[in-house]
């Protein structure tokens, strides 16, 4: 037990000076009551940093090239490259943040990538590829991958049923787009709507009790 004569106290701790007055302690230490804790280290930090730097280099080169070649074709294509890189990073950051809860992550990715695709499409002349292809194909992939992931991780229905329902609701959004006349190629949207209705039907028929129970507690006020 060590002693501080200024504070008149005995001290037990991984210090050679008094934690209260920073005076040098007298006496011998007989081991500490609190263990030494290593600072948490995110091992993959360096790889993330490298990819981030590469993105910055690619973006810078594209901007420089665009400026040099602007007079010949008068297009700001480097903006698309930068937008693409940004979208990748937003999606990647979200996946990293939600990596412990894959079904939730899938739902977020569908939402984010769809919104970004629609934004880029609108900026690039509103051709319609986002609403025609990206949104329906994303929703179908999400529903299929959710089934796979939950099977592989042996997740119980209760744990992911909410995210499955949200996904299926996303799958009906193409119906809204069709009704508003915003869709030119209907095949992907039609397939997506069908898959969504089938998935919801399967849940409602085979898991009715579970669904009712889960909705009751999730929606309680």
């Amino acid at each position, binding site marked *: 037990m060590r002693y501080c004569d200024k*504070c008149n106290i*005995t001290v037990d701790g991984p210090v050679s000076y008094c934690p*209260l*007055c920073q005076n040098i302690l007298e006496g011998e230490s007989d081991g500490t*009551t609190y*263990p030494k*804790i290593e600072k948490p280290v995110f091992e993959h930090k360096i790889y993330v940093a490298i990819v981030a730097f590469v993105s910055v280099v690619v973006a810078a080169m594209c901007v420089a090239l665009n400026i040099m070649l602007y007079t010949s074709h008068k297009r700001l294509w480097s903006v698309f490259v930068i937008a693409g890189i940004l979208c990748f990073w937003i999606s990647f950051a979200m996946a990293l943040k939600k*990596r412990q809860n894959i079904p939730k992550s899938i739902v977020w990715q569908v939402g984010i990538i769809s919104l970004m695709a629609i934004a880029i499409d609108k900026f690039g002349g509103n051709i319609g590829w986002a609403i025609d292809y990206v949104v329906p194909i994303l929703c179908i992939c999400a529903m299929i991958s959710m089934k796979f992931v939950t099977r592989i991780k042996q997740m119980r229905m209760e744990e992911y049923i909410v995210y499955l329902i949200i996904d299926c609701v996303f799958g009906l959004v193409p119906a809204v787009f069709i009704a508003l006349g915003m869709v030119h190629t209907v095949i992907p949207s039609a397939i997506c709507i069908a898959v969504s209705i089938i998935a919801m039907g399967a849940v409602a028929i085979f898991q009715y009790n579970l669904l009712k129970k889960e909705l009751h507690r999730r929606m*309680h006020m």
Partner: protein
Amino acid sequence: MQTGQWHKLDNAAKLFATTSSAKDPRVFRFVCELYDDVDPLILQRALDVVIERYKIYTSILKKGMFWYYFEQTDLRPKVMPEYKTPCSVIYNEDVKGLLFEVTYHKKRINLEVFHALMDGTGARNFLCDIVRFYIIERYGNDIEPPIPKLNKPASETQQADDSFSRYSQKLTSYYKTPNRMAYKIRSDRLDNNLLGVIEAHFSLKSLLETAHKYGATITEYLSAVMILSINDTMSKREEDMPVVLTVPINLRTYFPSESARNFFGIVNITYDFKKSPNNIESVIEETKKQLEAQMDIAELQLRINRLTALENHIAAKVMPLAIKNPFMRLGNAYAEKKATAAVSNIGRIALEDKLAPFVRRFVFYTSTKTVQACICSFGDVLSVGFSSNFIRTDIQRNFVRRLSEVGIHADIVTNLGD
């Protein structure tokens, strides 16, 4: 209580769930220090038995559309060697894990709890049952028969009781005189949100004698010492704002309840050094006056009504959680501006006479954004657990020095290192 069963959060838990963050995870730790190194196998056995008497603690926290809720699981806790800094984050919304941990290091058993699950009283009861069972298992041969039996726990319904709701009445008037802004302690913070813990252990007898000399209880006396210790560090200009201590009160002593969850109210002690003198007698007198006024059953009933009025308002009920959360965090940040520091006294911790000799002392402390002093006593030891993210330790130094000057000397244990 079966796996899959769900229940709502109590009033305090709703706030803790929303405002938990890396800077203030809303986690507190209860420590029991023995005289021998802890045997992890026996500790695991003790935990396995005791958790069955507190099944409500095997819940996980989930997010609903409008509110958080608890869901009962068949997860069972595993005892581990201490591996994190005190009161680190326990609740992670993406990991459906238990909301408490039992760890050990050398002679200490630690119970770390996310405050949404239970309050100090609940944790004290839970830890004491674990310790009782551990001692009986480990030292049974050294105990003179008859060996004490564990008390029968409260029924599951009583344990799961949301006492805030049960005692809540309709609020007649929403008006409340607003509190003044309080003096805020400022300091640089330790790296990585480390919680700096300084435990001060005193002789209970000496403290009681000194407190009684001033006609005060331990809580009143130590709160006064805390206020003065803070004032010792304040400049004349800073004295424009009063020092405000928040003091949690166990409501179970006023409103009968066996709830194993949260059931506490917060009262304030406000001392204005611009208007009032800075001698201990004056501070104690003002402290006594304010505590007695607020610890009146009608006042506490009003406090319960105010706390529950907001969550029962129709606007709060229909607002989705995603929108409620930022509002609640804002409200919480605003309330924090009105408090300087906190003092929490859980009172005496009692073990059966035959088991007490195996325990050296208890101590507890909590995560906080300011400085908090948590007080408990066991046998002849009164332990004050100071916790803070701040680099500065002058308030704790003043506290210990003030007691040292009246002949009460501290044994200090700390996790702050070189």
